[in-house]
């Protein structure tokens, strides 16, 4: 099935590159960025069942890592990209080390606290991060003699490539022993531990990989904008990405992408309502969940659990 529709999907995805309306391409670019974040968070929340409310922190770490490397030592984008992903991944593991034994909603609040700590620290370390004014003049990516510049199209292409690679890798991982271990932990941590799964290691792996993906997204974001401020990494971002993952269906990679596309396009589609836009967006979110509580594409493995009425966290 997926093989048959893949070429059409690809054409559809690449069509915006020939669209002359830069606003539309920019909106899609944002959607793709959110898709990357949603896939990463889905690893943590959907696969490993760790409710994380500070995901924006990893995005921020990725963005600031590239921005600082670029501004201080002139590091080019293509070298900054893996370093940003790596440092956000390390941050994920480091955060995980102390909090791995905190569970459920308590984990949620610790990660929320972590997210706020990172944001306020970035705001206050003015010598390094420019404080609330942020950092300016971050270099755009360059390939040979071609500079990506401010046009959204090359970034859209780059993000489609990144989303495809990451989505493919995550889908493969979900079916591997690692994915099975994550799902075992999510469904019943005690039983998983008793079956010989090193739960701490697999949780850290999920946090590290999820953090790394957010780092990638942060790096692309910083390079595209050329400017970053702490405002871009607030709690609302963490919550929106989480909403995308849940709406798409926990544990489904395709669902995460779908959720990201729906929730990032909806406010744009409502733009004609001007001031009432976000008000209506709130109603749309309430209604979507009202009629589709399990999300668009919930993973079949967790369907059983959803029917029972128990949450996974």
């Amino acid at each position: 099935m997926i093989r048959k529709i893949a070429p059409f999907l690809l054409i559809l995805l690449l069509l915006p590159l020939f669209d002359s309306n830069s606003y539309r391409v920019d909106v899609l670019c944002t959607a793709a960025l959110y898709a990357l974040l949603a896939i990463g968070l889905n690893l943590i929340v959907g696969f490993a069942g760790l409710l994380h409310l500070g995901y924006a922190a990893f995005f921020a770490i990725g963005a600031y890592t590239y921005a600082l490397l670029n501004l201080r030592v002139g590091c080019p984008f293509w070298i900054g990209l893996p370093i940003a992903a790596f440092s956000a991944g390390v941050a994920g593991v480091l955060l995980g080390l102390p909090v791995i034994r905190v569970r459920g909603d308590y984990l949620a609040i610790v990660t929320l606290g972590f997210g706020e700590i990172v944001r306020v620290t970035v705001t206050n370390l003015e010598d390094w991060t420019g404080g609330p004014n942020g950092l300016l003049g971050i270099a755009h990516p360059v390939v040979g003699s071609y500079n990506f510049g401010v046009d959204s199209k090359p970034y859209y292409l780059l993000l489609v490539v990144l989303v495809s690679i990451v989505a493919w890798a995550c889908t493969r991982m979900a079916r591997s022993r690692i994915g099975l271990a994550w799902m075992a932990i999510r469904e019943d941590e005690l039983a998983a531990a008793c079956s010989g799964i090193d739960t701490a290691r697999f949780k850290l792996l999920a946090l590290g990989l999820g953090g790394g993906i957010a780092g990638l997204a942060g790096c692309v974001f910083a390079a595209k904008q050329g400017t970053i401020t702490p405002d871009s990494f607030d709690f609302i971002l963490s919550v929106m990405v989480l909403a995308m993952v849940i709406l798409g269906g926990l544990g489904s990679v395709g669902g995460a992408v779908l959720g990201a596309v729906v929730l990032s396009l909806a406010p744009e589609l409502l733009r004609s309502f001007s001031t009432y836009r976000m008000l209506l967006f709130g109603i749309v979110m309430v209604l979507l969940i009202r009629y589709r509580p399990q999300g668009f594409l919930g993973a079949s493995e967790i369907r059983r659990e959803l029917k029972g009425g128990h949450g996974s966290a």
Partner: protein
Amino acid sequence: MSVFQIFLQQLLNGLTIGSVYALIALGYTMVYGIIQLINFAHGEIFMVGGYIGLTVLVISSGLPIAASPLFLIVVLIAAALGCALLGFCIERVAYRPLRRAPKLSVLITAIGVSFFLQNAVMIGYGAQDQYVPNPLPMAAWGKGGITVTPLQLLIFAVSIALMIGLQLIVYATPLGRAMRASAQDPLAARLMGIPVDKVIAVTFAIGSALAGVGGVLFGSYYSTINFHDGYLIGLKAFTAAVLGGIGNIPGAMLGGLLLGLIEGLGAGYVSTQWKNVIAFAVLVLVLLLRPRGLLGERVAERA
């Protein structure tokens, strides 16, 4: 000012804001205790409470009755009733249809409600800060370098009275018994003839009323209110609830007061810029040492 006086002053300021946090934290903890939902819209209800208070104060500003300090009681009651109704409606329209849905999905509903309320207020009142007239415009009392405003004392008095009242409702009335039973085991409670849905609705209404009162107190204390205020204060109150042990009513009070104290002292001795970091760092530390919060009981992993 001596070192000790500064300490006392910061302590006092911290306790004032802490008692507002405690009022809001109570709503979080009550709702969580009964349906295990982190009601992210709760901070917005607090904010709406502040705006109801502002509206009543502004409308009545010319009337002779408004000059009396007792008028503040009317304002508080108006906000409490308005927010109770709002909380009741939100539960009915948004949360009740999802009673059997997965817990995380309801989180999206809460975020949606939150967006709705924020933007409704923004459209109604504008995005700029609104000035809240001081309902108790009397001189502050100062002694030995420490100043206490009548408003600060009132915030204390109202918060403590409400907390005692809530404690009485929960532990000494049939309604409270029904609430505790529904929290412990909804199915068994239902079998014993307790109208669990009604109890949940009333829990929402009570929690929202407390948040509404908190909103008025907060607005008068800082003299301004903004449609964005619900977000950060809500987050802090939620933190306070978790700090004390979520689902635990005395825990929420303790957590709120402690958080206020930590912030007050942090702002006084370290820097105001870092006060939020200090508050969250303490929270993380407490949870690492006591994963169930300060007064939280050990409960089964999947309650």
